[in-house]
C-alpha cells in the first residue's frame, strides 16, 4: 500500500499536529502536577488534580492513541520509510508504546487523586502519589521531546530487514532494466 502525495501530506499534518499537541498537553499536565505538589492553598490543589484528571482523559490519552494506532502506522507502512526498516522509526515506536502504557497505568492514580481532591480530603499520606505524578509527567515530557528530536533529525541506521528490502528492490529493478 502506497499513499499518494496529497494523502501523505494530509496524514503527516495530522501526525505532527497530534504528536506535538501530546507533548504540549503533557507539559501542561506537569505544570498542574507541580503546582498541586507545592501549593498550600487547598482549593487550588483540589482544582489542579480535578483538571489533571480531565486533561488526561479527554486530551492526553486520545492524543497518545492517534499516532500509535492510526497516523504512525499509516505513514510508515504507506511510504517507503516502512515500520521496521529504519532504527529511528523503531525507537520512536518503542517510545510511543512505552509512554502510552505508562500513561494508561497512571490513569488510576490520577483518578484517585481527583476523587480525593473532589472530596477535599488530600492529606500528607498522598504525598507519594503527588510526587509520582510529577516524576511521571517529567519523564513523559523528556521521552516525547526525545521522540520529536529523533523524528526531526532521523539519525542514520538501517535494520537488516530494511537493508534487505532496499537491496532486493534495487537488485530487482536493475535486473528489470537489464532484461
Amino acid at each position: 500500500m502506497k499513499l499518494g502525495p496529497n494523502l501523505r501530506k494530509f496524514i503527516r499534518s495530522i501526525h505532527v499536529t497530534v504528536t506535538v499537541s501530546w507533548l504540549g498537553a503533557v507539559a501542561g499536565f506537569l505544570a498542574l502536577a507541580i503546582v498541586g505538589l507545592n501549593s498550600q492553598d487547598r482549593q487550588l490543589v483540589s482544582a489542579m488534580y480535578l483538571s489533571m484528571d480531565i486533561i488526561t482523559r479527554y486530551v492526553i490519552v486520545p492524543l497518545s492513541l492517534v499516532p500509535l494506532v492510526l497516523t504512525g502506522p499509516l505513514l510508515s507502512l504507506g511510504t517507503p520509510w516502512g515500520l521496521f526498516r529504519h532504527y529511528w522509526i523503531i525507537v520512536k515506536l518503542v517510545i510511543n508504546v512505552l509512554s502510552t502504557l505508562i500513561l494508561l497505568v497512571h490513569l488510576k492514580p490520577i483518578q484517585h487523586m481527583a476523587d480525593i481532591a473532589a472530596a477535599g480530603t488530600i492529606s500528607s499520606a498522598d504525598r507519594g502519589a503527588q510526587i509520582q505524578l510529577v516524576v511521571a509527567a517529567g519523564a513523559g515530557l523528556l521521552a516525547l521531546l526525545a521522540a520529536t528530536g529523533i523524528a526531526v533529525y532521523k539519525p542514520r541506521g538501517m535494520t537488516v530487514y530494511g537493508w534487505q528490502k532496499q537491496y532486493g528492490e534495487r537488485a530487482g529493478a536493475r535486473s528489470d532494466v537489464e532484461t
Partner: protein
Amino acid sequence: MEEKSNTPPNNTPPKTPAWVKAFFIVIVLLILIVIVAHLMGLRFDHGGVSELFSISMSQLNILYIL
C-alpha cells in the same frame, strides 16, 4: 573524481548503530530498576500495575474514553 555508488559495496548487512544499542540498554535498565524497586516493596502504581494484567480493559477507562 570517484563516483559514488547507490548500492552497498558488498552483501554484508549493516551494523546496529551505537545510539540504538545505547537506547535499548537504557530502556532495559529502566525496566529492571522498576521491577527491582517493585519487588523491594516500593509502589509506583497505587493499584495500577498490579491490576493491569488482571482486570478488563474497561476498568482502565479505555472504553469510556473511546
